Each structure stands twice: as C-alpha cells, then as structure tokens.
C-alpha cells in the first residue's frame, strides 16, 4: 500500500548555466533506507500522449535527494517533474514540482576568463562551459572606451588571440556568455587589463 509513506516535500529545481538538478527533502523512516524515483513530462507529453510521464533511470530507486535532469530537459518547452519515495513494496504519492520549468529560466553566470599579454599580443583563456555556450568578448584600448571591438567565440579552444597591441599600450577585456538555444546572455565578467611589453627591438 501507498498510504504509509509520505510524499517527498520541498521539491525544487536548481538550474545554473544550463545544468539542471531536481532536489527534494528526505523522507525519514527510522532504521530504514528510503529510496526515490523521478519522472519528467514535457509539453509534448501533456499535449500528445495524455500527460504521460517518463522515468529517469539514473534516478530510479536512488537514495540521493538530488537528480541531474539536464539530459532530459533538452528542449525549450515547459516541463514538469515528479518524485516519490519507495520503501520495499511501499510507495508514496508523487510529489510534483509547482508550476513549470523551462531551461530558459536557467541562471547564467559571467564566464571565467584570464587575459594574457604575450609580447604585443592580447590573448584570452576562457573556461569551457559546454556545447550550448558561446562567448562575446569585448576589448578596447584603455582611454579609448568608445572604440570597442567584439569577438564571438563559438568553440573554446585553448587560447583565443584577440589583437596585436601597440607598444606600451594597455588593453582591457571583458566577456559574457550567450546561449543560442534560449537566446539569452549572462552579465559581463569583471574587466581585466594588460599592458603590452615595451618595444624590445634595437637598431645596431
């Protein structure tokens, strides 16, 4: 029977940078190990398959109170999630997320970047954030804030060459992420400035 085991409470979705996790409060039964199973439902399931639910096998009979749902929230539509507790043959009622979740609601953090001066060259190192992300890198010569260049970086390789600097000049850089699938951008990272090394060439 299902009545004895309470449904999980405080069900919520934590979503940052297109990584989505379902969490819930543990169901406590003295001296016993409670397990949980998670299912999801997209807009397609609500409209075309009578509101059917699809189990997430990695989160079936799990003892964790967290489930990585990123792989299944893979379209920009409204999803619902539900979780129930299981103890032997006893199952609780389903606890369902309140309202809908769309990946467009994910919170986007500014990219982590490191700006380097290599001789006369301005280079930037960007931390890889996964295939959904591209980067808008803005750079300018210090003191000429009105003349800003932009470079769109779609695939993070090791280092990105931004520009060749004038000797002794200082260049400043900041960047934001952009996610095409949800058409949103993060806020900008803090600005970082580097100075080109002075001219080392000499006439003999």
């Amino acid at each position: 029977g299902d009545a004895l085991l309470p449904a999980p409470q405080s069900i919520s979705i934590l979503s940052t940078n297109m990584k989505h996790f379902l969490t819930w409060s543990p169901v406590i039964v003295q001296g016993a190990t409670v397990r949980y199973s998670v299912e999801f439902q997209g807009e397609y399931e609500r409209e075309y398959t009578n509101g059917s639910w699809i189990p997430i096998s990695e989160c079936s009979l799990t003892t964790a109170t967290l489930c990585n749902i990123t792989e299944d929230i893979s379209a920009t539509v409204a999803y619902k999630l539900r979780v129930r507790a299981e103890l032997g043959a006893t199952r609780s009622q389903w606890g369902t997320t309140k309202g809908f979740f769309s990946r467009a609601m994910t919170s986007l953090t500014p990219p982590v970047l490191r700006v380097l001066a290599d001789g006369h060259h301005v280079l930037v190192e960007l931390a890889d954030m996964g295939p959904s992300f591209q980067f808008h890198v803005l750079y300018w010569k210090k003191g000429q804030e009105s003349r800003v260049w932009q470079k769109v970086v779609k695939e993070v390789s090791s280092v990105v060459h931004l520009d060749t600097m004038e000797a002794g000049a200082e260049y400043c850089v900041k960047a934001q992420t952009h996610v095409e699938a949800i058409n949103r951008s993060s806020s900008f990272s803090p600005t970082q400035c580097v100075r080109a090394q002075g001219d080392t060439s000499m006439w003999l």
Partner: protein
Amino acid sequence: GACRVSMSMAEIRAGFTAIKADIQSRDPIRTLSILSHPHSLHKLKSSDRCCITHQLFTFYVDKVFKHCRTEDSFVNRKISSIANSFLSARRKLSQCHEQNNCMCGEESREKFKQILANYEGLNVTSAAMKSLGELDILLDWMEKS
C-alpha cells in the same frame, strides 16, 4: 519576409544518433521509404523549403512520435527530447506561416501528399517507427539545402 527559426539542430541530431540503430532495427520493411519515395526531398525548390519543413514538423509532432513508445526507457527519453524540440520549432514555424512568410507551392503540397500516402500505406506503428528511423534524411536535407 523570410522565416528565420532558431532551433538546436545539434541537440536533435545528438538525440537521434543515440537511438538511431535501435529505432531502425525495429523497422522490418527496408525496401520502402516514407520521406524519399518516389522523389528525394532534395528535389524540392528552395522556395518550398519553409512550407515542407513546417508540414513535416507537423507530421512528426501529430502523427509520428506518439506511436513510437518502446519498452526501453533510454529510447523513450530521447524520443521525448526530440519530440519536445520539434514541438518548440513547429510553434515558431506556425507563427511564420500565419505571417505569410512560409507559403506553400504546388510542389510542396504534392510532396507532402505523397509522404502521407506512404505513411498511411503501412500500419500505424510500423509507419511511425519507419518515419522516426528516417529522421536523419530530414535533418540532412534541412542542413544541406
């Protein structure tokens, strides 16, 4: 004006690639094609491209995905992922259609009529599974033309 619809082709392609072998193994009738019989999608005029894309997305959303439920949870999850992506893209295509930016010529109407005839020539589960198994034909055509 033109009809510009942004959709994550890479995500759809990745989802389909993950289940392609499984889905195609469930299609015993290898001699028939739903999308390519008698003519390939590539023969269509580019002016008909938007309309046939809209019709095909409607075809997959309305007729195909819901008849492809399997006993395999992984396959079902990937089908759900593709179906929800198609639903999202179809909505944008429908908006284009309503704004008369996605007009249907005679050729695309004929082609879509043929696809429906191919589909209705089989029992619904076989037809749906075969159509899903041919998704890469549609994706290739969308990316190449």
